[in-house]
């Protein structure tokens, strides 16, 4: 079934910036990535989604030439990752899960250092530093030591560091991991601004699946394989109009009653969830049909649900 869930796959990209064929990485007996095919278009905002250990970071590291694939090939920004890794690195930016900054240096000094590593003239680094610090609301922190910045500011600076040399592709490995909700929103806001201003292709991984809803396209990974892909809104729309969640002691009787109406469900002990495809019924309507339960909720589906149901459909465990 090739893992594609919705009927209409995303249209073939106009200019391909990243192309991977049969990308595979094994560590001894462990298969981290099991033969990946990817086509990512110029300017696309692309999400690589999945739980921890699903192979997202390994994929990112292969595409950014930090590790070599066991087999398979890929080209990034027109350069082959195996034949010309240095050329690939010149054209990409990578933001790791953990900070790639020197805590002992100031905000400005970190960007100067990063700029020098890309052989940028100091005047250019100064100009871009001004632009980026403004873009990421860090203008007032210029001379502050990185060690004294908050987690959110540090992540923002790390992203600024990643795009200082105007890469054609920006890889972000879990850009919001370890941040609180407010800072997470700020990071997504910065990324939107960055894409608007620079039109850079962004490839990110995240296991906060619901956050990837603004991506142009997402791919779901599980155990090193792609289990589904598509546009977030379409994936969500084709999953359901809403999700009905019920917590009850006698889950079996609830399932018996609702299965004929709503079809398949996902059960986890006394918790059951159904997909509702007909959006007219209200929570009160459902309540009337059911015996008393502990909890009943009708909510909008998100990418998390898409992933859970995808795994369910594939016969996997709903992570």
């Amino acid at each position: 079934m090739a893992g594609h869930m919705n009927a209409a796959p995303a249209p073939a990209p106009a200019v391909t910036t990243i192309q991977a064929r049969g990308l595979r990485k094994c560590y001894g007996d462990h298969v981290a990535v099991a033969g990946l095919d990817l086509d990512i278009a110029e300017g696309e905002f692309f999400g690589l989604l999945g739980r921890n250990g699903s192979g997202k970071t390994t994929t990112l590291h292969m595409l950014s030439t930090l590790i070599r694939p066991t087999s398979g090939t890929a080209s990034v920004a027109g350069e082959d990752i195996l034949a010309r890794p240095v050329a690939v690195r010149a054209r990409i930016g990578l933001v790791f899960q953990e900070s790639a900054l020197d805590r002992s240096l100031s905000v400005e000094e970190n960007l100067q250092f990063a700029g020098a590593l890309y052989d940028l003239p100091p005047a250019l680094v100064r100009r871009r530093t001004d632009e980026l610090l403004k873009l990421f609301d860090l203008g007032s922190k210029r001379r502050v030591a990185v060690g004294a910045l908050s987690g959110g500011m540090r992540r923002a600076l790390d992203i600024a560091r990643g795009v200082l040399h105007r890469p054609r592709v920006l890889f972000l490995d879990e850009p919001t991991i370890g941040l609180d909700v407010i800072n997470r929103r700020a990071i997504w806001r910065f990324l939107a601004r960055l894409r608007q201003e620079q039109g850079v292709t962004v490839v990110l991984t995240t296991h906060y699946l619901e956050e990837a809803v603004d991506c142009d396209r997402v791919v779901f990974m599980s155990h090193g394989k792609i289990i589904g892909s598509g546009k977030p809104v379409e994936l969500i729309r084709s999953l359901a109009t809403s999700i009905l969640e019920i917590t009850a002691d006698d889950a079996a009787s609830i399932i018996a009653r609702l299965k004929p109406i709503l079809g398949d469900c996902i059960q986890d002990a006394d918790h059951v969830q159904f997909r509702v495809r007909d959006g007219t019924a209200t929570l009160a309507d459902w309540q009337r049909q059911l015996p008393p339960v502990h909890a009943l909720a009708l909510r909008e589906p998100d990418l998390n649900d898409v992933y859970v149901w995808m795994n369910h459909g594939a016969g996997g465990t709903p992570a």
Partner: protein
Amino acid sequence: MKRAIAAIIGRELKRMVRQRGRLVAAMIRPLVWLFIIGSGFQALVEGGGQGHYKQFMVPGLLCMVLLFGAMLAALSLVYDKESGVMRMLVIAPFSHYWIVLARILSAAIAAIFQALLLVVVLISFRLFGLDYFGLPANLSLSALGLVLTSLTCATTGMLIAVHSKTLDNFAVIMNFVIFPMFFLSGALYPLEHLPPILKAFALVNPFSYGVDLMKHSILRDVPANFSADLNVGTDIAVMAAYITLGTIVACLRFSQVSVREKLAKALSGSRRA
């Protein structure tokens, strides 16, 4: 590439200057040796004639500053393996062996800076009538000696750094590498009087050649029993060969697939996820 290397060196010097403690310790260590050990030994050898022991010690102590300065700076690569800076370096658009080359270079330069600082301190002692250090016998040879010795020490530190995972065994390195290199180098006593086994150890110690070259270039008017043991050409050739070979080994090791994969794993932070 020039900008990148300059930035890596600049960062090392900036860090050295900002970590005042490290710099002060680097100055005090040789002075303790000069005043305490030096005074004791001088009294011991005084019987033999003039009091030249402290002057004799100066080349060795300059080398000691190079040894500690360069080794510690190069060994800090082990800490950096999991640091933000290493993330910036591995993703930068140059081959990974440049990271090793730039680190060796920056460690050597930081060490030379410290040695020159000690020279300034020693010269300023003349104001108090303490004549330990005057104009070197051969200025350009001393410059060459500083460069080669610091590179020798930096290469040694880098060879250890690229082979070790953590510096939990730092004390081990201190006790079983740095101190033996110093004691078995002719820095404190001429090699010629050593028992044959120790002398053999001293001769496989690349640092000995640095100390010897510095004695050649700095010492003047010392009695024959305090002069250098080897010849200048040998000193230069041995160190040049050691630096070249050691650097190549360190670069190859750092570019090895298994080492790079471990590094990528450490840098990805997935251990903590």
